[in-house]
């Protein structure tokens, strides 16, 4: 019965996704320099991402292409511009499939974020809405590999919580460091992490199970939350991120979850 209900809607969701997946896979090899990026963007040169979880016993490296990255997360004000131009994403009109009821819950109505939060990161946005915003802006959400590459410079010497080492001073949570820390080579750029989690395009591709120790099961590629499979089991920032991502569904709209976009270098 569940399948019957799910199948058509699944298709519907997937159609929109194919288009997104297409752009995401389109690798551009042209000009790979900072000049390609806009003023509010940071150029991230090509690099290598080592996935947090091993495949079998292998530690792989994934090459990551250069990208132009928004220096910070999308603000309420910017998102307001988007919903002005794209009424389908206003809170009264958004398809229930694309966002749960908490979508933009701190907005008074379709076009009125509270004035005091205009310049703050927009949150209570679903993965669908975030992706649509980025697409309209000529970009897309970063992949986990891209995000971890530019922002997973994570724990100061793998010492989560040692705020003395946290020059970013990100937010109230003692675990704000897990929400992003510039890769060392981007330390002198405008790259900023305002203390919210961020959507990634394939957020649920590397699952941390809700429990340690379940990876012995058949589905170990999906549930690999145990420390043994982690490349660096003392990187608690990464554990927190992967754990958080794996608790998400694409329609979730949460208080502490925002996003930023990337554009492929052209």
């Amino acid at each position, binding site marked *: 019965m569940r399948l019957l209900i799910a199948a058509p809607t*699944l298709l519907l969701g997937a159609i929109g996704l194919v288009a997104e997946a297409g752009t995401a896979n389109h690798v551009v090899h042209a000009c790979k320099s900072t000049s390609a990026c806009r003023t509010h963007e940071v150029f991230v040169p090509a690099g290598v991402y080592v996935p947090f979880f091993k495949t079998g016993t292998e530690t792989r490296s994934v090459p990551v292409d250069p990208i132009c990255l928004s220096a910070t997360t999308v603000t309420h004000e910017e998102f307001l511009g988007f919903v002005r131009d794209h009424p389908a994403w206003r809170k009264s009109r958004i398809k229930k499939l694309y966002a749960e009821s908490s979508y933009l819950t701190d907005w008074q109505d379709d076009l009125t974020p509270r004035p005091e939060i205009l310049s703050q990161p927009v949150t209570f946005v679903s993965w669908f809405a975030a992706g649509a915003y980025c697409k309209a802006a000529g970009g897309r959400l970063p992949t986990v590999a891209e995000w971890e590459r530019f922002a997973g410079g994570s724990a100061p010497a793998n010492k989560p*919580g040692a705020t003395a080492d946290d020059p970013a001073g990100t937010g109230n949570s003692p675990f704000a460091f897990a929400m992003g820390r510039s890769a060392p080579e981007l330390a002198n750029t405008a790259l900023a992490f305002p203390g919210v989690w961020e959507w990634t395009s394939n957020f649920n591709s590397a699952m941390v199970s809700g*429990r340690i120790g379940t990876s012995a099961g058949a589905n170990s590629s999906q549930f690999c939350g145990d420390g043994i499979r982690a490349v660096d089991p003392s990187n608690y920032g990464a554990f927190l991120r992967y754990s958080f991502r794996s608790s998400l569904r694409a329609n979730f709209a949460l208080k502490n979850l925002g996003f930023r976009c990337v554009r492929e270098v052209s």
Partner: protein
Amino acid sequence: MKQFVLFAVAAFGFLSTAQAGFPDASAALGTTRASAEFDEIRGEERAVVTSAPFVPPPLNRRHATKVLLDVEVKEHTKVLADGVTYTYWTFGDDAPGQFIRVREGDLVQTKISNHPDNSVAHNIDFHSATGPGGGGEASFVAPGHSATFTWRAMRAGLYLYHCVAAPAGLHLANGMYGLILVEPKQGMPKVDKEFFIVQGEFYTNGAYGERGNQQFDMSKAVREQPEYVVFNGRVGALMGENALRMKAGESVRLYLGNAGPALMSSFHIVGEIFDDVYGEGGTKVNQHNVQTTVVPVGGSAMVDFVMDVPGAYQFVDHSMFRAFNKGAMGAIEVEGPVRPEIFSGRQSQEIFNPGTRLQRVAAVTTSAAPAPKPAQQVASSADSAIHAQGKEVYEKICTVCHQSDGRGMAGVFPPLAKSDYLMHDSERAIRVLLEGLQGPITVNGQTFNGVMPNFSLSDAEIAAVLSYVRTNFGNSGAPVAAVDVQRVRALLAKAGSEPKDRTASDRR
């Protein structure tokens, strides 16, 4: 194409939640399996829960039922020790979470709610549940969401529950644990009073007692070297006003848990022997007459005892540096008539100077005699020598309890810093050092009820250390001279011998 598959999974995943609830799941648990295999589930009721250290009353229920249990996860800043705060992650309001009492055979429908303000995903693993992850995966939930799952309480016993979201050690070290008792069908043997105590560790970046808001320290956690080892979530949670209270002759059961996440506990009540121990929290009394019982990390134990002799007692993790330097200490107050046939209390005290007694007394006398008022007459160089000696004695003996800054430990060890008790009466202070001190005192408006031993110091040492504490730690009082100590010592010796004579004459 590969990405398409991923996205399809994402979309499907959220849809299955959207349809969620699996409305007949718990019903299936309740009825589909052969009723011969499981007790019939009759009716439903809200779970009976209580905050530490109290335990819900026995269920006295003769049938299995469906128990509805709501657990809310909160991340909030709380007091860890005097002047020290920490951002706890908790089930309900506190670490430990509430004590849950169900009956063997019950179905427990558990709804876990992760507050929208929380920063990370959480879940709950019941050691009492039989199934993957104890519910870890089934209950794994993002901030602003709830998840429900149902499990059958197949086995009676005392169990830990805790959050096991990755990284699990961090969730435990932040306070996400509690105890659940699955009563055997016939119930637990009746006792007069029940309490629960959960031991847990905190890995703060600052050293023990360092004031201000503390952060989790990863490297200390990996080395398994907590700054705090505490009972019921904070230093002093079971001290002073919060001590466990009972009457002599009452039967008492303690439900003990150890959340760790690193250190085994050796639970011991100083001055009491457990009559019965349900080892590792199982349903069988496996030992009588136990001085110290082990409470494994991620495990439990139950101990039954009857306090016979009234007074103030302490319980500790007998890994004693944890008790003295990391907070693993609590108190029991027992009311009742004195029982001299079991325990006399101190009957007498004499000076014991093996062998050299006469020479030593003579030496003290001769050195003291030529200087009848040394307090007024010592030169400044002598002053600093006394100060150095006092400091040395303080650091060797007193810092263990009163701490190097003289502040003591709230509810446990009274402060010497700016202490009205210390400064009010220098003769009383001398007496305390000569005889030790036991029983309730009030210091700066706070009540302490502990024991300070008699350290057998010399007159000069007592004078030096008292002079030191009375002129340091924000105190400004007159120094104490060795002759003053000598005088009080003589008075006490005389007083100590009098009652003994009287007792002797009474007997005649």
